[in-house]
């Protein structure tokens, strides 16, 4: 059941623009920067960020897709999860920004960090998320944060993106 609508299409767009500027301010060498989108919605967010970078700064950023499933710590407590594409080539000496839609326990990000290290030794790893809903179980925080949304653990944060859901919005479901 819908409890609240947190972000609409326009707000998501504004947030992504702001995050692009934050990345732009924090980095110098954009050739070594690699956006790693986590399946499913992180992949689309990373592509949007790269698009904005190209349109507004004229800078082409490299993006990759990462499926964290093999690195999850809850693999055997859940029904089997279908595998997705991973197309990372080498993370050696790259500056990485992990891109995901919701930051919750931090366990997915831990898995992503482990995966990235399997592809080389990156210079630096940062984290970008659209929504931080709290309830961290690991010492992980976002470097680039869209919106902090305090939630109860009974609630569900639902991010929908046009690429797969035909609509851009973030809602809280109970």
């Amino acid at each position, binding site marked *: 059941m819908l409890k609240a609508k947190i972000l609409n299409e326009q707000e998501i767009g504004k947030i992504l623009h702001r995050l692009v500027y934050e990345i732009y301010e924090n980095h110098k060498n954009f050739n070594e920067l690699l956006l790693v989108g986590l399946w499913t919605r992180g992949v689309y967010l990373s592509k949007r960020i790269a698009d904005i970078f190209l349109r507004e700064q004229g800078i082409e950023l490299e993006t990759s897709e990462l499926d964290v499933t*093999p690195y999850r710590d809850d693999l*055997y407590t859940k029904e089997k999860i279908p595998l997705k594409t991973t197309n990372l080539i080498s993370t050696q000496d790259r500056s990485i920004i992990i891109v995901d839609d919701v930051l919750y326990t931090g366990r997915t990000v831990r898995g992503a960090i482990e995966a990235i290290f399997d*592809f080389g030794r990156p210079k630096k790893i940062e984290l970008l998320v659209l929504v931080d809903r709290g309830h961290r179980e690991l010492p992980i925080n976002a470097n680039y944060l869209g919106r902090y949304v305090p939630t109860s653990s009974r609630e569900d944060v639902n991010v929908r993106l046009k690429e797969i859901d035909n609509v851009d919005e973030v809602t809280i479901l109970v």
Partner: protein
Amino acid sequence: MISHLLSTKYLDLDEILEIFNNAKKFLEVLNRPTKKIPILKGKLILTVFFEPSTRTRTSFEIAGKTLGADVVNLSVSQSSAKKGETIKDTCLTLNAMKPDCIVLRHSVSKIPEYITNFTSAKIINAGDGSNEHPSQALLDAFTLMQHFGDLEDRKILILGDVLNSRVARSNIWLLKKLGAKVSLCGPSTLVREEFEKEWDVDVYWDLDKAISNVDAIIVLRIQLERAASAWIPSTREYSIFYGLNRERLIKNNNVIIMHPGPMNRGLEISSDIADGSNALIRDQVTNGVAIRMSIFYHLLARKADSIGII
């Protein structure tokens, strides 16, 4: 949903396609600089081979290790079977070591199915007598799908010693499930007339007729240790009538050639065909590892209490 891989008969279409889809993802892993993902970390896989094998056992071992599992190989020379232990006792002993999965090859048909009664591990049939070899059939079908897209109405010929071949049986069930039209060819001692009715396939004894419009040929190894002595008059005669060579394929240029290996070059297949551009034999080997990774994932990576049928 199966809980052991004993036969391709028990697999349903959704499961087969899921195994293939995941195998595609695992092929990516095999091309990475670090060929290891921790998806089966902490799982113990035993490969127990009562019959000699190098490629199948190695393929399973690489598959398990790439997924982060611990793989322990037991070969027959170290096995207590030599000392007179029954297969049941061997399995009970192995089971007490708490493996999550046992990959078993045995010269007697249906042994893998029999031992599912004595172990809580998932059993994978890596070849039982002349009965079945499901992981080989899955990698064959996967390789064909990779090439053709889908197998609906594709004509696939299985050539050679069908009678003694576990690969042939597993392939027939599986390829037919995927919509392919399967035909068999070989001398009448090895490709019996009754197979036509029993398995609902076409049977040929004339190779030139059989290959005239097929899309792919799966060439089987002549088992020199068995067939050569009893079922065919001489290997020379066999190679003249049923050996696959350039002259035979001259009218059918696009046909795909597969072989489960090891090959007897010059007997069932000529070298220029085996090494030619139409042969997918090396792809089969690479795909074999990815398919076996996918089989392990299919059987092992799920909730411990989920129940499946055989």
